[in-house]
């Protein structure tokens, strides 16, 4: 099994599985509303021109979140 790392460090094109989310309150709720829960698979598909926010593919749609929001999410990188 791969080591857990912050979602911020995910490279473009890499796929990963969410292991842990430490956000609570409104941010936590928003993250969960969008389907980001432990076990969900994500893929980094793009970064904004200033490298923040990041665009993620989650299941069947694309969402964006800021780097400091990605810091609250741990993932394990999946083999390609």
């Amino acid at each position, binding site marked *: 099994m791969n080591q857990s790392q912050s979602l911020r460090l995910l490279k473009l094109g890499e796929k990963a599985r969410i292991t842990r989310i430490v956000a609570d309150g409104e941010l936590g709720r928003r993250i969960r509303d*969008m*389907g980001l*829960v432990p076990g969900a698979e994500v893929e980094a598909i793009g970064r904004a021109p200033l490298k923040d926010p990041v665009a993620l593919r989650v299941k069947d749609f694309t969402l964006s979140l800021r780097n400091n929001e990605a810091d609250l999410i741990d993932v394990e990188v999946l083999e390609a």
Partner: protein
Amino acid sequence: MMRPLTIALAGNPNSGKSTLFNALTGGRAHVANYPGITVDKKEGRLQGVPHKVRVVDLPGAYSLTAYSREELVARDMLALERPDAVVDVIDAGSLERNLYLAVQLLELGAPLVLALNMMDEATKRGLKIDSAKLGRLLHLPVAEVVATKGAGVPELTQIVTDYAAARAQNPGPWQPLVISYGPDLDLVIDAMSKAIEQARFLTDRYPARWVAIKYLENDTPVMDEGRKAGAIGARLETMAAKAAAHCNGTLDTYPEAIIADYRYGFISSILKGGVLTRDDRLDRIEFSDKIDRLLTHTLFGPVIMLGVLYLVYQITFSLGKFPMDWLQAFFDWVGEAVQTGLPDGLLRSLLVDGIIAGVGGVMGFVPLVMLIFLLIAILEDSGYMARIAYMLDRVLRTFGLHGCSVMPFIISGGIAGGCAVPGIMASRTLRSPKERLATILTAPFMTCGAKLPVFILLTSVFFPGNQTPVLFGMTLLGWVMALGVSWLLRATLVRGKSTPFVMELPPYRLPTWRGLVIHTWERTSQYLKKAGSFILAVSIVLWAAMTFPGLPADREAAFEAQKTEIAAKIDALAPAGSAEEAPAQDGAASAAVETEGRGAAPTPASPDDAKKEAAEAPERAGNDAAAAPAPAGDETVESLKAKLSDLDNAKAAETLASSLAGRLGTALEPVSKLAGFDWRTNIALVGGLAAKEVVISTLGTAYSLGKVDKEDMAPLSEMLSAEGKTVWAGLALMVFILIYPPCVPSIVSIAKETGSWKWSAFSMTFNTVLAFLLATAIFQLGTALF
């Protein structure tokens, strides 16, 4: 025998809910606001059924928590109005996430019908959905639709009406779905539900279990209700806190997170049973990804975005110019007609300068509002607006704003020549309340199209030869002020963490004409209904302030006497001025007017001087006439007419000076002198509240120049130059005009968009103080140092 059925339409943003609403209701909707907040409340009538069925469009939401106004409104409507059926519009392409809302609606007990929208798109992406099976597993009707093409809409209409009618005939209590939240929470939830039922706490509105879950989710509005209810609230909070402590201690997580996990678990258990199958050979959102590779590219992305923003601006104002000019011409024509048709007096002045000018002002914005909302609808429906927010977030969040704030700024005059009214309205695209408020309050700092002619006039006087760089500098200063003040506001009055950016980037889609037209029309009619009447009312108040109390009777009589005298002379001379001479003299006459206009200088230094001078003016005119015993060469009809017009101008100047606005301007002079403004400037600035370009015409009246045209400001600029104001006074005035309170239509728009006049009052006070401080600093420092 039957009361009208009510159907509510719920769904995620970008699920095509509005399109389906239009398809179900035939596009005829009644749009209102929920009381006190600016969330649209749309209602229509279901088409294709014989009896009346109300369709209420709930705001788009991802869940039924109470973090956004949209979600709270949706929840309250369901709990209080108890619709006979709720249609959850689901983007079939992302079924799993969309079902998250559906599950919460079921937990509330709502009589749910699922409408799987955009089935065509989902199929193209290789998703197969067994909707019949989905319906069996969730015990509810499911319809497949393609709302943009109208496919499946008649079937959905039938299903929903049957379902709602059946519910209405057997109106038992709602049957909430019960999901297990695991051993750690289920016990607590049960215990809390019992307590809730015993105390009958909110049980008339929500299922007891649902209320218990909300306590575990830290739902503020429900907990506030509990505190009001007394002991039960405290008891539930203790139970919830204990459960949270347990989760934190043993599982290192929050109850909310566990609840969400189990909800998603429930959804995937349903989908796994053969409801959703994927064909992985198809790259699912390939097309959108390819476009994004270009449109959000590190280099090309921002360049294309600037191009798009510039284009939106250009189209709005270059295309909007034509209907605006026609409207202006029309209202000018009506004004002229009334002017000639009615005798001079208060009624005429009220009609022409108050009502017709006011209605014209309101209508003048309509083409702009329409165009900007058409273009915004295109950007939103196509999915590009989300990319703008995505690319600009990093920059704008530094100032406490949102990526989407850029659109209101640009429209308000971020590119000089915009307009704050459509700009403020364009802030509706922002879903984060604090960022939105900061945007609304700072957008009016931009160089709008009404400030522009004032700046052109002032730069021609104070910065001849350097007009362009100074104008550009003012535009930049507008940006600096907007961003700086917004940063300041977000650190003080509108303080609070930035709203999380977690945001969907919807796939690129082609907007439908029908959707665009409906959206544009709704916004425009709302502007007319909500803002229009207020703008008109305030225009009339301002007219009154600049008209009353009017000249004292003796002064009025003196002016009239002079006028009658000159008029009589003209009559006497008229036969002498032969018909063939008249055309040749036209040019000479206007030249005479101009010289006389200039001759009116030297400008009086104080209002008292002005009054004295104005008082002398008619006498002088009279004396001149009397002194020269009408030698035919000297006193022609034209020179007399010019005198008559001078007399009118002098009268207008004196009327203005003695009006409420004039007295205010005079009273403020001791203070405004600090910034280098004399009483005339003050009056003009008060007039500028109606619309900033009024500054020019008011200055014209105050300097006895009569009507000064935007197209020809030469006489006024000469007058200002002759006065010998310094460059610093000019610069201070320009900065003041840039920053001081926006015009009345903007102030009304601020109130309408923030839902509170409090913010309009704030904007007026804060901007005036800020503008005055800056103007004073520029004038004082500039004068002292250079």
